[in-house]
């Protein structure tokens, strides 16, 4: 294993200055020399685990994966570094399907928050360009094995376009896995207000009805006018450019999915109807009530990104474990789904435990692991690079001393696209620093 130099005093001093979110964890260099991980239990995800397996990666990509020892053909340019991982496990890096890592440093310090642009319809913005590669959140997140993430803008009806990043790089360009993963829509609340309640008078009921109708009309209009604009520009290229309307293009053409955040039954039904009518590829995000419309989702091949299992059931009478059991229900119904953490941006690292809860309530461990790796990659459209240990994919992987979904398991090594990560971070260094104070 390659060592690295880390001047602890310097780092400690540097960490003391990080109040503005400046991360000073040492960066990894691009992979120069081939690496072969040996004698490990490999968890390719797409295939059953391989005991005593070996995994060879080269120039940031997985070159080979197999049971037993990999013999390097004679005449190779350089002898690969061999790392003996007896008793260790290798998994693809976990993927947080939906998060805001890199867009926020400190939630309540407004200057550090870049999640929501002004206006209800801002499809033109994309998350990638605002990702801060020096965010302290990134090393904290990846040190628990979460190595890639969907970054979703927030706010309004159409907050913008999601990007996919790997959680390491000198610049956001180096972190980029997908610039534009799809358009994000926050589906308007469509639950009709109660007709007669103590609280609502008739006028407010009508206002509410009007508001629902208007927001749905606005949503339709946004897509209709964009379509018209694109057709007009195709016919007449001299037409001035409308950056906002252009942004609907990939989704309108069917090249990108539409990510719709919807929770309630009525929202899901309404969003599915919308997407089916327009022929969009729909990926629901959140979908807390997905268990109540499984047939609908299956019939229209709607994919679902659940946002965490550690969520209170929204109805008083509900089973206490309604959301804990939701992943198992989707899996049993044969719906394409994955699990995002549902955590605040700073605790994306807890993604594996959200998955573990689903296992405690009926999901298989294999399905749980897939839900935070390969399935997430698939729904974000990056399965060609991430999500499983397969030749040709990025060497984005973790080495653990056990099941990564278990609390006590430690991440011992990690690589992103072949770059060996330093798993220290602001938090580990603060711990070290203050343990110094107590050294007898």
């Amino acid at each position: 294993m390659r060592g690295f130099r880390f001047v602890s005093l310097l780092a400690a001093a540097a960490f003391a200055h990080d109040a503005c979110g400046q991360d000073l964890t040492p960066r990894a260099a691009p992979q120069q020399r081939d690496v072969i991980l040996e004698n490990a239990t490999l968890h390719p995800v797409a295939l059953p685990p391989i005991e005593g397996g070996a995994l060879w990666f080269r120039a940031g990509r997985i070159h080979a994966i197999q049971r037993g020892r990999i013999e390097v053909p004679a005449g190779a340019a350089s002898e690969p570094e061999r790392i003996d991982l007896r008793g260790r496990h290798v998994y693809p890096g976990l993927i947080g399907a939906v998060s805001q890592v890199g867009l926020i440093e400190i939630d309540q310090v407004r200057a550090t928050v870049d999640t929501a642009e002004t206006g209800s319809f801002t499809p033109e913005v994309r998350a990638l360009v605002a990702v801060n590669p020096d965010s302290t959140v990134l090393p904290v997140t990846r040190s628990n094995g979460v190595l890639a993430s969907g970054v979703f803008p927030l706010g309004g009806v159409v907050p913008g376009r999601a990007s996919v990043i790997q959680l390491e790089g000198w610049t956001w360009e180096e972190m980029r896995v997908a610039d534009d993963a799809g358009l994000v829509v926050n589906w308007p609340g469509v639950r009709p207000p109660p007709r007669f309640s103590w609280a609502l008078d008739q006028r407010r009921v009508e206002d509410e009805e009007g508001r629902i109708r208007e927001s749905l009309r606005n949503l339709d209009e946004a897509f209709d006018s964009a379509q018209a604009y694109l057709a007009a520009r195709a016919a007449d290229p001299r037409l001035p450019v409308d950056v906002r309307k252009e942004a609907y293009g990939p989704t309108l053409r069917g090249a990108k999915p539409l990510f719709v955040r919807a929770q309630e039954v009525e929202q899901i039904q309404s969003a599915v109807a919308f997407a089916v009518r327009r022929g969009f590829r729909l990926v629901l995000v959140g979908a807390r009530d997905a268990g109540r419309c499984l047939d609908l989702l299956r019939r229209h091949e709607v994919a679902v990104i659940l946002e965490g299992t550690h969520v209170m059931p929204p109805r008083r009478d509900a089973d206490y474990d309604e959301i804990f059991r939701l992943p198992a229900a989707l899996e049993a119904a044969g719906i394409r789904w994955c699990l995002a953490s549902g955590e605040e941006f700073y605790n994306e690292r807890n993604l594996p435990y959200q998955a573990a809860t689903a296992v405690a309530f009926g999901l298989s461990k294999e399905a749980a692991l897939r839900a935070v790796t390969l399935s997430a990659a698939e729904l974000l459209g990056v399965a060609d690079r991430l999500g499983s240990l397969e030749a040709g994919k990025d060497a984005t992987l973790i080495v653990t001393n056990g099941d990564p979904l278990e609390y006590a398991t430690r991440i011992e090594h990690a690589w992103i696209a072949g770059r060996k990560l330093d798993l220290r971070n602001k938090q580990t260094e603060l711990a070290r620093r203050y343990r110094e104070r107590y050294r007898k």
Partner: protein
Amino acid sequence: MPHPTPRPLAAAFLLASALSAQAVTAPPNGPRPVDPRWHALMHARLVARPGTMIEDATIVLRDGLVVSVEAGAAPPAGARVHDLRGRFVYPGLVEPHLPVEAPRPERASPGLHWNEKVTPQRRALDGEGTTKALREELRRLGYGAAAIAPRGGIFRGEAAMVLLHEPEDAPGRRATVVREGVYHTVGFETGGGYPSSLMGAIALVRQTLLDAAWRAECVAAQGADPAAVPLPPDEALAALAPGRAVPLLFDATDELDALRAAKIAKEARRPFLVLGSGLEFRRVAALAHSGAAVLVPLRFPRAPEIRSAAEAELATLRDLMAWEQGPTNARRLLAAGVRAAFTTDKLEKRGEVHAQVRKAIRHGLSEEQALGMLTVEPARLLGLEGLLGEVAPKRLANLVVCDGPLFAEDSQILDVWVGGQRYVIHTPQPQGLAGTWAAEFPGRDPARADLEINSKSRVTLVLGDKRVAARGETLRETRLSFVVADAALGAGSFAFTATLEAGALLGEAVAPDGTRFSWRAARSGDAKPESRSSRPADAADVPQDLLLPLGAYGLPAPPPQDALLLEGATLWTSGPAGIVEDGVLIVEQGRVVYAGPRAQAPPPPAGARRIDARGKHVSPGILDCHSHTGIARGVNEGSHAVTAEVRIQDVLDPDDVHWYRELAGGVTAVNQLHGSANPIGGQSQTTKLRWGVAIPDAMHMEGAKPGIKFALGENVKRANAPRGFGPPGAGAPETRYPATRMGVEVVLRASFAAARDYTLARERFSGVAPPGPVPPRRDLQLEALAEILAGERLIHCHSYRQDEILALARLAGEYGIRLGTYQHALEAYKVAPEVKDSALGASLFSDWWAYKMEVFDAIPEAGAILHEQGVVVSFNSDSDELARRLNGEAAKAVKYGGVAPADALRFVTLNPAIQLGVAGRVGSLEKGKDADFAIWSASPLSSYARCEATFVDGREYFSLAQDREHRARIGAERQRLVQKVLRGEEERRAAHGDSRPATGPRDADEEEREEARRRVRLRMERALHARLGYSCCRVEEVR
């Protein structure tokens, strides 16, 4: 006793003034009118009081009072005789709470209370009181007297019982006041500054009552001392002087408010009443136990709205059950022995009162009880039983005259007598017009016809086999007129009129050509019995037994406290025994008898329930050291910087479903904390998760050390509040003190100093007995702070940064205080020795950080580091959701920093118990401790572990098997009730369709409302369809 001592003086005064009728009045315009005010009501069927029927009663009224009531008596000579043959007479109804506008004290008035919601000196009588329209409305419903009470505020002012006659009909041309000061109304009102929470309102009520008592003492002491300097005037507190013996009427939002009221009143030793909510049925036994007497509104909970499958799911079983059970409220209260009277207050429409009473009767209230709750009971609860509520000599002459029994569906109120004055409500139609009549039209063609007249005076002309409905029928006195337009009589319209004379109709008609002719009709047959609208069925299908709490997951009774023998599990004792493989746990009477290895286990108690727990793990119940679960109406009283006087225990909500969900996560006790909006918040409560208790206080952990919430840093200096945020009066963030950590320290320092002075001042008076000098005023805020100084109350301080932690540690040191915990304390790891020396421990989030500036240095290793340094560490949730998974939080201490598993589990069991001063009772599985424990499917530190059962006091409050039963029961009950709601809707719609009910007055407003509903429903449906314009999927309709 809830009612005040009757005051014979006032009653005598009233009688004298009523009898004299010689009050000073304005000079008459014209001759001086004389009204003898002397009546004899003859031959009535009198219900003099509930259960006492007098046939052929003669009731003599004079000068506004009942003089005599006697069966078959002759009228006194000189009295005006009223023949009430066939009529039913009842006592006039009594409204015990009628809110009215009343003037508020002037800003400059003497003795204004500092809080503008405290205006006990207001008097309902100082305002307009009832309006004419209101009086008329109430009289139409049979009411003759009402207690008018000022509207709005916390101490709202004094109510008075007044008669509902028109002033010009009363002696002195002023409505008679039956009694002033029948009660003070108190409401737990919040908003617009202090108090902003229910617990704040309760604290203010409690302090104000103390202040009033203290001031009365001062006044008395001053009276005894001629040299004393006069006290400054204080009208507010003077109005509340205990010596006045005016009871308090607490306006309750739900049945828990009623229990809160009872507690406050008992503490202050004040007579009290409760203005109910209609939800009392949820806890009648507890109410009976509390001694509360209740004014019960006739408002019944509405049915939840159900238009789609999704809405059916949204309707909670609790609401559905409340809807079904609401009408049983009165019956259940009386059955439990609660004294109760009906009030029309809180009804959406007062006109519904009789329909609602009938509904209550269909739900098992007897007619006698109903009448009592409308007459004698309100009178008695207000201490006016000698004056109102029955028809008997010397009572006020308030009567209701009906054409049938008062509670019969089609009875009508004809007259209401108020203070001896008759008010005609409804003139009965002359008897006998309904039937068939043989009509003759001499000289016309046709010369004969048959008339059919129904009880609604609808006229049908029958010519052979042809039936012609008349139009425009009107009946005035005995004069009937109608119009017939039919070719059978000739072209055009014929207008008929006739008068009933000696059993025959004699009349005249005008033909279309203007010619007049006379006609006559003789009775040829009686009215056909008309089909009555079907009476709503008795509510026989309404379940008798209720769950606690009402709704989903409620229990019919607390789980049994069996002796238990649990075998084979891995026991995580959190005690000295550590982790025991193949352990045995024995429980008797809710206590641990043994927890340890099988080898040393004593023989199990006879009849112990055996639990085979092989392969399972058992831990002590999880203890959440920072919870806001089950706190009703406001977690923060943040309107002042210091609110040590407010108490979480006052607002514990035992029905919060999150208790159940937390039980499902192995939690058995929590530290219920006030929020962190101000430097010194309210008193905390250590609570056991005894799900399904009737009395909230039953959840308090016995012997727990009292606590209080403090807070430092960004929240209390309002760093993150937008400009202008905060309740009015509390000051904008940039103007409210403190705005810096410097100021926070000063607020705390000044509070401790004041508390010390308070203690000293009180001590100087300890042992001083009356008639010595009056001790200093009791101040509940300073009292709580003094308890901190005395070491009797633990501080649990929300804190983050090391500087603020250290500042508090040093300040506490100056005052000799040892804190309970630093809460959150995410930088406590930087000052571990200082934390260790100044507090019982630190209670952290396992791994939260970066949600605001002051937590940017938070690290997940903090727990481990503090633990290494000897600090007692707990991990808490501060969240209903996370509370369910605290075992997993403990596991993170193993992951980050390598704490040993047994020690890590102590972070959520024994350590929080130590921090709350309850380690002698809970926190570990040791002999003699409470049998609070959880059974897990795997190691509680595994992310795959699932809680399978949770015991509190040896009672199994949660288990997977019980949960399955709950689900089945919830599903079935929901299904039944949703169907019932939908059926009710159907019936209403059918009833509203083509055929209007043939008899019974129809409430025009009800029709209007129905129509409005129909319109909205249509609009909703249209909207729904518009939404589904996209439709490929159909909204699932409820089946």
